[in-house]
């Protein structure tokens, strides 16, 4: 009896394992596994339209969505172990260099006329918005990703509050401060501020992007290549001016909890009507007119008082993908003119194709498209190097210490510059 049970249990285990592994094995050529960053507005559109692609190609598409904060490490661990877990990767521009060793160049597919119709696809539609769109994902004359959405930080402001105060939307950083200061108000006279002039994205993972807009707007910038970095790159009068203004905004015009805010939280503060202006990513534009969650429908406008980081996202193919050709078909489909338009309509995404960005019907409804198009002219990129995350963090730590009053702006920039230098030196950029 016992022997029978043992044999049955062993067989049961073997069959179960067999079934599990059979289920996990990819059906080559028939299935596409797409890794997406969760929460992006493009996901809604792509997922709702994917049945068209499946019908056309006979492939089955599976989406694996992972949160922004966890996707990089999760994907890199899978890619370095060559698990073949994905056929398509959603690559944020700032992470491109981390992904690069694991990405497959798209050139060979793009040269195949059966797979790629250059005229119909229209690469110029991207570059005429800003050349950065394609530059970011190119290395050594190879292209590693096709862009599917882009975001640039805009200045979102409450039109009604500005009108009431007789103010115009800010055109530069100094005006931004002046307007923010004027609009910071205790409306009911109870001694507490009811509307703050601005919200800041001062969370550790967001503060650097925002501060860079200030730095860029005063004429600061990064040298073309990291090898040209000096300890003066962040430690100079322009950077100091930008940081002092940022500190004044935090002390005088922004909610103190801005220290823990980023993209979502500042957007929510605007929706709740507790801030008059803010620096935020263009992707948030549709939130403010969403009657279900916003109290400021029709009251928000956008302007471009600063140059911001060009946050472009692309779809790429990992080297260990089982179905590279199918993956290429998917990314050209998902980034095509037609689908980009449909995805934009369906999910409120901000496109990086000029034809969609300037589509009259869309521009009429989406008031932030026009400023977004203008912002493309001034958009910048940081160095796309694997060490950028460490440099970003080194800066963020010191910037936050300035806001809490732990150290002076001068000390913060000196420390941040030294730390960034150490990171680049360690990585061998000055050898």
């Amino acid at each position, binding site marked *: 009896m016992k022997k029978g049970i043992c044999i049955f249990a062993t067989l049961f285990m073997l069959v179960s394992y067999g079934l599990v592994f059979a289920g996990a094995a990819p059906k080559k050529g028939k299935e596409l596994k797409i890794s997406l960053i969760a929460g992006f507005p493009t996901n809604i559109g792509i997922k709702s339209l994917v049945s068209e692609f499946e019908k056309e190609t006979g492939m089955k598409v599976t989406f694996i969505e992972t949160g922004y904060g966890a996707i990089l490490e999760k994907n890199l661990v899978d890619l370095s172990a060559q698990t073949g877990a994905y056929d398509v990767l959603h690559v944020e521009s700032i992470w491109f260099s981390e992904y690069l060793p694991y990405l497959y160049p798209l050139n060979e597919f793009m040269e195949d006329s059966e797979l790629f119709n250059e005229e119909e696809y229209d690469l110029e539609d991207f570059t005429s918005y800003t050349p950065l769109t394609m530059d970011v994902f190119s290395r050594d004359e190879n292209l590693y990703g096709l862009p599917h959405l882009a975001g640039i930080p805009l200045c979102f402001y409450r039109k009604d509050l500005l009108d009431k105060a007789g103010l115009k939307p800010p055109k530069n950083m100094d005006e931004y401060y002046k307007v923010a200061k004027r609009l910071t108000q205790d409306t009911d006279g109870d001694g507490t501020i009811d509307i703050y002039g601005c919200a800041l994205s001062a969370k550790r993972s967001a503060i650097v992007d925002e501060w860079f807009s200030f730095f860029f707007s005063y004429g600061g910038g990064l040298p073309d290549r990291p090898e040209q970095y000096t300890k003066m790159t962040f430690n100079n009068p322009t950077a100091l001016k930008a940081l002092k203004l940022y500190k004044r905004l935090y002390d005088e015009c922004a*909610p103190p*909890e801005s220290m*823990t805010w980023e993209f979502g939280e500042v957007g929510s503060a605007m929706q709740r009507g507790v801030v008059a202006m803010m620096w935020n990513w263009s992707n948030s534009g549709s939130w403010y007119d969403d009657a279900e969650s916003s109290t400021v429908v029709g009251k928000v406008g956008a302007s471009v008082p600063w140059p911001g980081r060009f946050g472009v996202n692309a779809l790429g193919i990992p080297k260990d993908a089982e179905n590279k050709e199918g993956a290429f078909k998917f990314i050209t489909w998902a980034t095509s003119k037609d689908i980009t338009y449909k995805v934009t309509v369906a999910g409120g995404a901000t496109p990086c194709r000029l034809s969609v960005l300037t589509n009259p019907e869309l521009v009429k409804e989406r008031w932030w498209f026009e400023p977004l198009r203008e912002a493309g002219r001034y958009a910048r990129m940081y160095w796309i190097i694997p060490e950028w995350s460490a440099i970003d963090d080194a800066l963020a*730590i010191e910037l*936050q210490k300035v806001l809490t009053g732990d150290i002076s702006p001068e000390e913060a920039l000196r420390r941040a510059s030294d730390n960034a230098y150490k990171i680049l030196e360690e990585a061998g950029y000055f050898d």
Partner: protein
Amino acid sequence: MVKRANLIPYLLISFAGIILFALTIYPLFYSLILSLHKWSITKPAPWKFVGLRNYWDIICDLVFWQIVFNTFIFTFSAVTLEFIIGMALALLFNRELRGENTLRSALVLPMMVPPILVGLLWLFMYKKDFGIINNMLKLLNIEPIPWLSRPFTAMVAIIIADTWQWTPFMFLLLLAGLRSLPQDIYESAKIDGASLWQSFRYITIPLLKPIIAIAVIVRFMDAFRIFDKIFQLTEGGPGISTETISHYIYRHGFRYFNMGYASALSYLALIMIVLFSMIYIRILQRVS
């Protein structure tokens, strides 16, 4: 037949041995070797042997010591609070109470919640304009506090969240300990005229010492490795005021992808936990 029967125990142990080797011993050695190398997952070049350089760099880094300090502040504060509240609750429950089972189940609920959700839960509770904690403070005419925006209050906020989650663990362990104590000693003490405090001080505490030691050491080792709540509530900020060792290891390993450096940090953290646990046990033994 005899030989075959003798083999069975070895065969059974070998499964456990293989699993132990694959999941514990191999990764430990792998990370030890890795800690002597420079290697980044984003640059798939061969490992570069650097000897003890990673360890030396960490020891010379002032930020590391600030983070060690933060970790100890958090660990000692959280474990002490959890112990005091857990002991008070255990003493309260160590008597006839109406609805004891329901109350006890409710008390242990926080322990069942995944730490990352606890972080999220408290993140909303700490919100300045719509968080429940500041709303309560407003009712008491106290100005709302931006809990997570200031170095001191951010650390306090994390300690409170951890205490909320892990006090039930202390409570359960201490209650089990209290219920296992012999009652005749208390009766003798009562006849001899001992007060409640004297019974607690001279009977309960000495008899409960082994349980206290286990509860505190287990919580100490766990609290020392705190990650989820920091990740969710502050990301180690403002600045590095709430950065702890586990979050620092995560940053180096999975943000900057310096795997060798992160492995060396992990080993130093392990050494610290072992050292402090040993010191603690030694002190307890001496006191006993």
